[in-house]
């Protein structure tokens, strides 16, 4: 091989290991599991984010404190610890019926869904809060002063602007979720990283197997980022909105 010869390294590239035998199917299954895991966790994370974000603004202090505790505790602890916690530690405390359902439907996968969505829900909550806070109060006052009702002001002015402000950091956060779904391999979910690793184990061709996994992640991330960038540009209000800072990672 020219590259290996140039570097003085003996390595025999065999890209065919990626599609011979079962391997091609493994990779496709890995992509499918990664997408299924990410999309499910993404939906739940949004719901948790919106719920806890809303609870942090209610005029009842205990509920506010509860939501703040959730956000601060879950987002400040490594996701890996949460995955181990939800997979190894937590299930024994659930009612028997839920445990049985878990065990029947793949406990690894569902622990990963719970771990990812609870962790990313806390982070999503911060993204949503930052978006809402970046809208000045005077905007609402101004819209009410022009004769809109509060409901109309929210529907026609506040929410359309807030959504545009949230799109860039929320995209960033969604991509983080997709990349973080790779941690599910530690509890045995057969997602993309797991499958590349498995091809490596079976063929001892680390370079080819890991390149395949890396490129697939790269294509997914760059693809989603460019679609969302286009969305952002299409819905931009000229001169009104500067990009909010990137979301915390």
């Amino acid at each position, binding site marked *: 091989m020219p590259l290996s010869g140039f570097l003085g390294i003996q390595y025999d590239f065999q890209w065919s290991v990626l599609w011979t035998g079962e391997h091609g199917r493994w990779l496709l299954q890995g992509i499918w599991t990664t997408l299924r895991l990410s999309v499910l966790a993404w939906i739940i994370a949004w719901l948790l984010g919106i719920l806890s974000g809303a609870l942090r603004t209610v005029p009842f202090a205990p509920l506010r404190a509860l939501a703040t505790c959730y956000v601060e505790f879950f987002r*400040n602890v490594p996701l890996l610890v949460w995955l181990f916690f939800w997979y*190894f530690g937590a299930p024994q405390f659930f009612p028997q019926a839920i445990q049985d359902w878990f065990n029947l439907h793949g406990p690894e996968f569902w622990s990963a869904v719970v771990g990812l969505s609870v962790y990313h829900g806390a982070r999503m909550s911060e993204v949503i809060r930052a978006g809402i806070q970046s809208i000045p109060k005077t905007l609402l006052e101004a819209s009410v002063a022009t004769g809109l009702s509060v409901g109309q002001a929210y529907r026609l002015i506040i929410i359309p602007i807030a959504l545009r402000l949230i799109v860039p950091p929320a995209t960033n956060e969604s991509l983080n979720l997709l990349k973080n779904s790779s941690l599910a391999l530690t509890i045995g979910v057969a997602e993309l990283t797991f499958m590349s690793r498995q091809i490596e184990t079976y063929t001892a061709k680390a370079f080819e197997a890991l390149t395949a996994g*890396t490129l697939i*992640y790269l294509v997914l991330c760059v693809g989603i980022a460019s679609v969302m960038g286009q969305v952002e540009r299409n819905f931009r209000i000229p001169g009104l909105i500067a990009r909010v800072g990137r979301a915390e990672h």
Partner: protein
Amino acid sequence: MSFDWGIILTNWKFLIIQGLLGFGAFGGGTLRLAIPAIVLGFILGTIIGLCRLAHRPWIHYPAVLYVEFFRGVPLVMVIFWFWFIIPQITGQRLPEYTVALTAFVVFEAAYLGEIVRAGIQSVPRGQVEAATAGGLSYGHTMLHVVLPQAIRNMIPSLVTQFIVLFKDTSLASIIGMMDLTKAAQTVSQREIRPFEMYLFIAVVYWICTYSMSRFSQWLEIRMSPERAPTRRAALREAARAATA
């Protein structure tokens, strides 16, 4: 189901001294990995950030490619790259600690590079023009005018990224490095007490990251020119001294 919180007391030395601090027979350690990774990652990140700002395309585009590549790939993949491919090429396995540190520095430098770039770009152009008009060379302008202001603007995002890196060090346990997560895993497998163990290290991680984020909030208030009375007083003093 009964709890047994006593196992934390009986294993605290292994968890904290070995796992968190990294003093013990196994090497590794969360903090012993995180601190060098932060320092080296910041140095490499600054270089990449400056390269990205360069006008020459053969310096600029490789830096862009580097950042975009590592931001689109999960950290686990990068760790696996170093862990599985180096032995195949060189024929010998590197220690877990070296692999983890290399992977973290290379990966985090992409994120830190973006922060450095944004920080430098946040310094108004007029500052550079004024410094150049005042006769400073490019190097002096960067060192005495741009970087001090840029670093002040970067601090909140830098601390946030350091927190992220600190949390990410838990991934070193995947390749078997004895950090806080791996230590908890070991104890929990021996004692079959996963709930208590993982909840305990969650609290330990939380104490570390939460105090870092409080520190960053404090620093942000202290360093912002509008809100820090001591700083404003110092500036006023300097102005008075200069005019006197």
